[in-house]
């Protein structure tokens, strides 16, 4: 039972004993700071500083093509972005992609997790297979799907799924479907693995007890599995929602933002890198950052109340 005795000491600091900091504890603390410092500093330098710099740039008129015209303009870049229909259009597009792909992933991911959890054989091959989409380069996945739907090179056209003349990547709805499909294909495995971890936390005894009480499989799934998995589901949703909201690679390769499928990340990229308008582009960047914070805050709040509820119930 070594492992179990070691665990509590390691996972959480022991009950606050603030009375006296011993010499040893001080040395330990010093070592801990030394060990953590490089990672913390790296994270601060590469994310903290640039986001601060982005905020600074977003208050400037700063176009690399007209370097002499650099000047402080206050919030006018933000008002430009927020009053343009393009920005809101892109926010809508990004939201559609995010909601649709995360919803589909949740259902599919749960199905795959259940297969991996309950299958009576073949768990190994399933696990190996689903890790392929997880590991594959997103750009590669996007090219594979783009060519699959290409009117001349693709194989999807002319099958039962699509008519002979259909070219989904030439219109908005079709393009959105293909982008969502690519996202779903690539990231469902990640969702499935997170859910699998949650599934393994549901004790079998509960299921057995419910079975004895005459609950059907479906009832057991919705009454026992889902509620117990709620935190795991919310964590998975949080990560995937944030990830989907920054969607760039697949949309960039599939449509490049054509047919009104521009996502906020593509907009930021176009303004920053294509138009080299760093001032205006940074305003877009900062707005995306704020949107991500809002999404995260929302989930953390829901997550907080749900775990609190659970604790209250148990």
């Amino acid at each position: 039972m070594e492992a179990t005795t070691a665990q509590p000491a390691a996972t959480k600091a022991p009950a606050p004993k603030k009375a006296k900091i011993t010499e040893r504890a001080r040395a330990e603390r010093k070592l801990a700071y030394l060990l953590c410092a490089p990672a913390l500093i790296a994270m601060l330098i590469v994310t903290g500083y640039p986001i601060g710099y982005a905020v600074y740039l977003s208050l400037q008129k700063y176009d690399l093509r007209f370097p002499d015209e650099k000047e402080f303009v206050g919030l006018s870049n933000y008002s430009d972005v927020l009053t343009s229909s393009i920005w809101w259009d892109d926010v809508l597009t990004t939201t559609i992609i995010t909601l649709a792909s995360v919803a589909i992933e949740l259902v599919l991911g749960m199905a795959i997790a259940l297969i991996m959890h309950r299958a009576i054989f073949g768990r190994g091959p399933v696990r190996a297979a689903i890790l392929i989409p997880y590991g594959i380069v997103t750009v590669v996945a996007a090219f594979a799907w783009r060519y699959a739907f290409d009117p001349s090179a693709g194989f999807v056209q002319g099958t039962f799924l699509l008519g002979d003349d259909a070219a989904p990547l030439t219109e908005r709805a079709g393009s959105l479907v293909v982008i969502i499909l690519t996202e779903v294909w690539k990231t469902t495995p990640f969702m499935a693995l997170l859910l699998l971890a949650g599934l393994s936390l549901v004790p079998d005894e509960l299921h057995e007890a419910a079975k004895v009480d005459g609950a059907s499989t479906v009832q057991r799934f919705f009454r026992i599995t889902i509620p117990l998995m709620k935190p795991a589901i919310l964590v998975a949703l949080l990560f995937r929602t944030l990830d989907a909201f920054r969607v760039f690679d697949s949309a960039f390769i599939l449509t490049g933002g054509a047919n009104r499928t521009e996502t906020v990340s593509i907009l930021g990229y176009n303004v920053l890198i294509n138009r080299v308008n760093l001032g205006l582009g940074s305003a877009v960047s900062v707005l995306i950052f704020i949107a991500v914070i809002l999404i995260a805050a929302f989930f953390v709040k829901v997550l907080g109340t749900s775990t609190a509820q659970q604790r209250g119930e148990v």
Partner: protein
Amino acid sequence: MTHTPREKAFWSIAILVVILYALIPVAWITSLSLKSPDQVADGKFFSGFSFENYDQIFSENTFNAALVNSLGIAAIATLISIALASMAAYALARLNFAGKAVILSGALAVAMFPPISIVGSLFDLWRAIGLYDTWPGLILPYMTFTLPLAIYTLSAFFREIPWELEQAAQVDGATPFQAFRKVIVPLAAPGVFTAAILVFIFAWNDFLFANTLTSTTDAQTVPAALAFFSGGSRFTEPIGAISAAAVVVTIPIIIMVLIFQRRIVAGLTAGAVKG
């Protein structure tokens, strides 16, 4: 335990569907890469074996250089990230100190951070200090953005290590270093290795940084090079060549995934269960 034939059939179909789901796009791009130029537009799922596209990409400097850049940058970023993360994870798992929450929430914040929010700043900073289109220019963001993943995975693994064994070994007469090397390193290695795989996959996969912070064969990685591939004539879209290059970058990932599948799954779930 016995199962009814109906159960067996159900699970067989379910498993088959999952495997097909995962493999169809991979099979498709592989088949595309094996088509000769006049077969590319035939719209068939499979039309034969021709290695023309592979000959073409490997005879081009662009792709070879990109492959070297990808390997080198991902490998160095992985090494540094794992080194930094191991130190932090050790502290988190083994030491008592105020400020654990700072590290963990800092890592969480970086994990949620949208890269698009800083590519503009990084571009402007990198061009000012000469890191634009260089290896370090990509290694820095990669190692940073993989730190959270590495720290969470590693600290989850490190918590499972029975550290008392180290003291036991010392009692038995081993020096502290021997104890560390002979006892702890072998125990920690699988976790470190798992984290390294996950970090490598991340760096190998990245497109946004590679696309914005590089411009030539000096530092362009494969995903960025793929998006900028040139065709056989000024206006030809090089479907076959892109597919071949796509297959080449996919092979190492598939090999890694197949060999280390248990570890990857353990690593991905280890960090997540704690919430």
